[in-house]
């Protein structure tokens, strides 16, 4: 069975190590904050200038001056720091954020990612995504393996305008966990009950399948 959004987020959160500084994109990546494993602490960076982002506020805590990069009201955790956008992206561009998790329209076997623009359709802008993929030490892309028409999002070569080149190393989808290297997708894990055949079918770029592909553990 393909994973639910919460299950994908749970698998993403297994990538976190204790003490990681993490930037989570909008959507499934943000959900990962709810599934951080026991014994692991991470500190969330929000690119509008907050290190140590906490949960959304209660009614009493709501403060218009306290928002995240998705423009949602948030709180700060104990030990947080707040700074300018220039300082925030100095952190990001300078490689100080340990893990960035973000969604994508497409990725390819060169580690390229397209996530911000669909010509003649979506022209809202890239926000901080280009800086994040250029700067983070470890970038995880999370998305559905194929679009709603069944077309693979794991391509040999991206067709949409790129967000960044040669930067993606790990992909966590509703079907599988894959590593990108040597111009191919290496299948590391499959979702419980999902067959290697289905993953092959929905992966357009070259897929390398080891003899044994374990199921994800939750």
């Amino acid at each position, binding site marked *: 069975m393909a994973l639910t959004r919460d299950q994908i987020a749970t698998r993403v959160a297994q990538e976190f190590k204790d003490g990681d500084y993490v930037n989570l994109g909008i959507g499934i990546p943000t959900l990962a904050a709810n599934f951080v494993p026991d014994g692991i602490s991470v500190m969330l960076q*929000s*690119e*509008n*200038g*907050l290190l140590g982002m906490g*949960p*959304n*506020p*209660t*009614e009493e*805590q*709501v*403060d*218009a*001056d*306290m*928002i*995240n990069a*998705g*423009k*949602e*009201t*948030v709180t*700060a955790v104990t030990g947080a720091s*707040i*700074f*300018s*956008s*220039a300082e*925030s*992206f100095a952190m*990001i*561009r300078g490689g100080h954020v340990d893990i960035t998790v973000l969604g994508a329209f497409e990725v390819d076997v060169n580690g*390229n990612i397209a996530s911000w*623009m669909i010509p003649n359709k979506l*022209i*809202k*802008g*890239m*926000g*901080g*995504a*280009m*800086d994040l993929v*250029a*700067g983070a030490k470890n970038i995880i892309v999370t998305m559905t393996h194929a679009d709603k028409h069944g077309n693979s999002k794991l391509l040999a070569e991206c067709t949409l*305008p*790129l*967000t*960044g*080149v*040669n930067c993606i190393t790990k992909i966590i989808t509703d079907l599988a966990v894959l590593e990108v290297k040597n111009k191919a997708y290496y299948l590391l894990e499959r979702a419980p009950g999902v067959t290697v055949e289905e993953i092959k079918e929905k992966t357009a770029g070259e897929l390398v399948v080891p003899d044994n592909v374990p199921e994800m553990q939750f």
Partner: protein
Amino acid sequence: MAGFDKVVTSYADAMAGLNDNMTIIAGGFGLCGIPEGLIAQIKTMGTSGLTIVSNNCGVDDFGLGILLEDKQVKKMVSSYVGENALFEQQLLNGELEVELTPQGTLAEKMRAGGAGIPAFYTATGYGTPVGEGKEVKEFNGRPYILEESITGDFAIVKAWKADRYGNCIYRHTAQNFNPMAATAGKITVVEAEEIVEPGELDPAHIHTPGIYVDRVILGTFEKRIERRVLAK
């Protein structure tokens, strides 16, 4: 210290000298930390042909979005403009130009403009539409693109507290682009929630030293929340 008292008492004085076709650098992220009264004054003045450098362009009826109604804006330099139907319409009609700029590059362009750095290299945007036509240079085997800095005829900034000398502090994440914007205007105007006497702000806590600031005005703020999300 009369020469350092930068407080003005009318919005007309605050934005005096703004003319058609000028460039304005604006602080704020979404609707957070925006100089509401200064934006309203620009609307009142009816200045047109403006180039506005700001991470976002407000929403249809609030923030910089209100300058679209009378087509005062010729060009936006922004990282994300997705909250605004009028914006999209004017863009598709060719009435508005937009230069989409990665958020970190935008912040750094403002900082560099204020700091006398005309250009810098960044990996951000290399190999993407953002990098097209830009100079590429390798450092340690990695390609980077050359990005030029930005300065404006005016910078409009929203502070929490400002003293009469123009020293400013920002509140929480309403800081965002404001400190860089403050450095990048030929004339920098600060709209503050509170104006205090010099000496009331701890010298070590000042986010924007007064040297960058030309005018300070006391504002009142609606502080609209764009996405009010509560704990479950």
